[in-house]
């Protein structure tokens, strides 16, 4: 059997092939390189360069043992860095490394194509970290380059420009099918199996504990926590308390969750105003969802806990969209049970003696709970407390140190101290964490809540009035709630860049960009089984199951493939008008018994036909001459085609 010249395994890669392949790999590892240790990136690039050196100098490739040695050393390095080879991050970095090693044993076009396929994996693994518009654009560019590379393997002699054009054409033809698949492919809610331990590492958000400093460090992050889009008007900043985890237990330093049992949801009655809104929350790998206080309806697949936290049935591991109603200042709910109230009074013994004494003094001098509360608020307001993101460190008596020594802190200091004081004075109270405020984007009227809006406040139980929200930070630093964090802390503080007030113009650009990004998040990244059902119901199909979707999918794809096939025949099926007229002429004569022989040229045929059909002699000869002139003449006369058609028709 002779070797097959088109078989990719038998075709040697050329310098051009490898250059393109390496260019596409460099494109796809660029986003990974930003997370990888520098030495691994450098090593991978060196491996690419090494391979290029071999092909440019026509040197034989290094021995397999050398390649294996490099692989072993690099794997050891990854292990030292991450202490595992099978985590998400380490696994992806190994993939990046293997792209370089694979090149070193790439000899044939088949190996090279497989290395190109490896590029697809490198693109998709990057999506595990980020799926923004720029990343999608980069992936698109990489796809064009990889496709051009693959075309180059199939047609090594072809001009590069033609290959790029073909790649563009192929991708343009692929796009409609991709869109249909994206919209109609039956989506399954993952995951299908357990994910690596570190699969959700690095997601930021509130935690279920609060100790001095951890909210302040979260507040330095510009990352988006969630976005909310209100129907009608948005609530003013002072009303935007987004309720998150409620903390009951205090050990002298750290606040933790209390008994977290779920209850049947009873919607609150009355209230000043009702808001209806949609939230798109960024993944934070926890169960809680954020709702404007107080939630009047629950999102789907979510429950509510006894202390008013909206809890999702599964951890929020991908961007999630939910609809909610909230009521501002509803009628008080019935009282809480005895056990909870006792828990809400508990303070660790032996800590913070000065604060305990102060609280006891207020209790002794006051008539009731509300009077104690008023004195506490007054105490904070008069205390000239400083609000800062970088508070001084606190000793073991954290509340005492804050209230009487350092006198500067972030919201967790204020809420922690306040709740301690209330408990010490015998008023049941608890810490509520969440977000306060958020920025209204004037472009699309969506409120963006960032990690820097993280906040902690307090709730006290006042008999008939039930649990009442008190924001000690607002009492001490009134500007915090009205104007947001940026104007409440001193300018020198470590504010996120974008929150600095002097960068107004930059914020305008960011607002527009984020409006686009939000649409992207909702419509592209947030496209899920639910959205899919909505889309199908728009098309008039209610309760579409996977069978309906599959049927719709295949009918669409079938139609598209047919269109594509029709396109592929299009330019061939239509000969030019001169040729068409000539064929019609031949058919007419054939019917009269003068068939053109395969070898017969137009002149001979016309002469023979004219002799056979003397009646039409002149017009046959004229058609023949005209056709020869149009077909083979140096300068075909204008309008000749029309004349030819006319003559043939009249024949």
């Amino acid at each position, binding site marked *: *059997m*002779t070797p*097959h*010249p*088109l078989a*990719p*395994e038998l075709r040697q890669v050329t310098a051009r092939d490898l250059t393109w392949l390496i260019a596409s790999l460099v494109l796809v590892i660029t986003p990974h390189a930003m997370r990888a240790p520098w030495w691994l990136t450098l090593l991978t690039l060196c491996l690419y360069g090494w391979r290029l050196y071999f092909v440019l100098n026509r040197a034989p490739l290094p021995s397999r043992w050398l390649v294996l040695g490099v692989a072993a050393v690099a794997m050891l390095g990854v292990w030292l860095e991450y202490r595992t080879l099978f985590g998400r991050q380490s696994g992806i970095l190994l993939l990046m490394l293997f792209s370089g090693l694979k090149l070193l044993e790439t000899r044939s076009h*088949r190996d090279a*194509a*497989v290395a190109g*396929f490896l590029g*697809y*994996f490198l*693109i*998709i693994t990057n*999506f*595990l970290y980020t*799926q923004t518009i720029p990343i*999608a654009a980069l*992936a698109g560019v990489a796809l064009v380059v990889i*496709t051009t590379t*693959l*075309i180059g*393997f*199939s*047609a*090594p*002699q*072809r001009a590069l420009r033609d290959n790029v054009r073909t790649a563009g*054409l*192929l*991708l343009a*033809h*692929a*796009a409609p*099918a*991709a*869109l249909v*698949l*994206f919209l109609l*492919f039956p*989506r*399954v*809610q*993952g*995951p299908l*199996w357990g994910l690596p331990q570190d699969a959700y590492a690095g997601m930021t958000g509130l935690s279920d504990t609060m100790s001095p400093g951890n909210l302040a460090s979260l507040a330095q992050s510009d990352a988006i926590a969630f976005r909310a889009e209100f129907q009608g008007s948005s609530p003013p900043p002072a009303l935007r308390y987004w309720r998150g985890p409620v903390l009951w237990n205090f050990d002298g330093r750290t606040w933790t969750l209390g008994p977290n049992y779920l209850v049947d949801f009873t919607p609150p009655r009355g209230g000043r105003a009702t808001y209806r809104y949609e939230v798109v929350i960024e993944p934070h790998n926890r169960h809680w969802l954020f709702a404007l206080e107080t939630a009047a309806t629950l999102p789907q697949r979510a429950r509510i806990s006894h202390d008013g936290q909206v809890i999702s049935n599964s951890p929020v*591991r*991908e961007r999630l969209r939910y609809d909610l109603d909230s009521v501002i200042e509803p009628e008080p709910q019935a009282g809480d049970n005895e056990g909870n109230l006792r828990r809400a009074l508990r303070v660790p013994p032996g800590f913070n003696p000065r604060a305990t004494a102060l609280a006891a003094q207020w209790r002794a001098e006051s008539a009731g709970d509300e009077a104690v509360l008023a004195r506490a608020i007054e105490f904070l307001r008069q205390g000239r407390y400083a609000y800062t993101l970088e508070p001084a460190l606190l000793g073991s008596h954290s509340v005492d140190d804050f209230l009487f020594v350092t006198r500067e802190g972030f919201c967790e200091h204020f809420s922690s101290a306040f709740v301690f004081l209330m408990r010490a004075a015998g008023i049941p109270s608890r810490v509520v964490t969440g977000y306060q405020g958020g920025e209204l984007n004037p472009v699309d009227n969506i409120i963006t809540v960032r990690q820097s809006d993280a906040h902690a406040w307090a709730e006290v139980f006042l008999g008939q009035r039930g649990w009442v929200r008190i924001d000690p930070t607002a009492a001490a630093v009134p500007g915090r709630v009205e104007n947001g964090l940026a104007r409440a802390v001193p300018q020198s503080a470590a504010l996120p860049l974008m929150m600095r007030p002097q960068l107004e113009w930059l914020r305008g650009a960011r607002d527009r960009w984020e409006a686009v990004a939000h649409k992207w998040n909702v419509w*592209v*990244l*947030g*496209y*899920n089984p639910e959205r899919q059902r909505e889309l199908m119901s728009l098309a008039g199909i209610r309760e579409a199951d996977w069978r309906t979707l599959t049927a719709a999918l295949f009918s669409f*794809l079938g139609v598209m*493939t047919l269109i594509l096939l029709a396109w*592929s*025949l299009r*330019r*061939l099926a239509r000969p030019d008008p001169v040729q068409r007229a000539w064929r019609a002429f031949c058919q007419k004569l054939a019917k009269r018994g003068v068939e053109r022989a395969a070898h017969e040229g137009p002149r001979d045929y016309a002469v023979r036909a004219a002799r056979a059909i003397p009646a039409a002699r002149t017009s046959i000869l004229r058609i023949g001459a005209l056709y020869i002139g149009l077909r083979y003449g140096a300068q075909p006369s204008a309008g000749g085609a029309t004349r030819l058609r006319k003559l043939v028709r009249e024949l």
Partner: protein
Amino acid sequence: MIGGLLERHPRFANWLYGFTPPERGTVVLVHRRVYIVPARLGWIFAGVLAVLLVGSINYALSLGFALTFLLAGLGVAGMVHTARNLARIAISAGRAEPVFAGESAQFRLYLDGRGGFDRPAILTRHVASGSQLVVDIPGGGIAEAVLAAPATRRGWLALGRVMLETRFPLGLFRAWSYIEPEARCLVYPRPERSPLPPFTGEAMAGAIHAPTPGSDDFAGLRDYQSSDSPRHIAWKAAARRDKLLTKQFAGDAAAELWLDARLLPHGLSLEQILSRLAGWVLAADRAGAHYGLRLPGVEIAPGRGDAHRAGCLQALALYGVK
């Protein structure tokens, strides 16, 4: 197994391939005749897509879905483009120069793209001999493929089945088509060297004793006639005058050489006889002799020149061939 089946049942093969050989005139590869299957690389690609899809589902990666589906679309588009690269090519066979048995016949195929786009990397393979080459058809142009087929037996050598194959653009699919254009090559018998027979002929009874006509005894010049071999033109002399002259060798003018099968020893098979005669024709032609050919049932009057030589060889090639 399938190959054997097709060989034993040619009509089934004809039905399957969509044509009845040989095909006269220009062969157009209509879509019905283009077959396409995934190449090995295509299966690897499909496996990659499956992994990407499972990964996208597992990690709920919206862009992962988008990438996977775009690649799937790319595969489908690649399939259509691969078929298009072959479909509607018009193939016509050119003239194949006669060869001697034992040499290889050079068949010329002209591949007309018949479209505004180019069709790169089309493999043309002669099925019987395995000779093959890859051609690129330029947009709106024609590519020529020369296929060498070994000529083993005298007579007409038909081109036989030719396979066209392409994997362009992505290499994921393999499209192919079989054609069998009507093209044939005349194969002369394998010439066997042996001493020429003696001169005969009424005019020169004594020619038996004449020197072997294969010798180079130059005898003079005469005016060129169109049937003269270019080898015998006296170029130097022609350069001095303004007309062509033909060199004449001893015995030429008068001697008449009959290459007669009856002069050969008995006991030779027909093919051996034809081989000897072919060798004689070549030798006589080289010698510039005035020769005729005589076989049972065939007689070609003496003559000389390339046309005469070709006529004699053709008679030998087709002797007894229906």
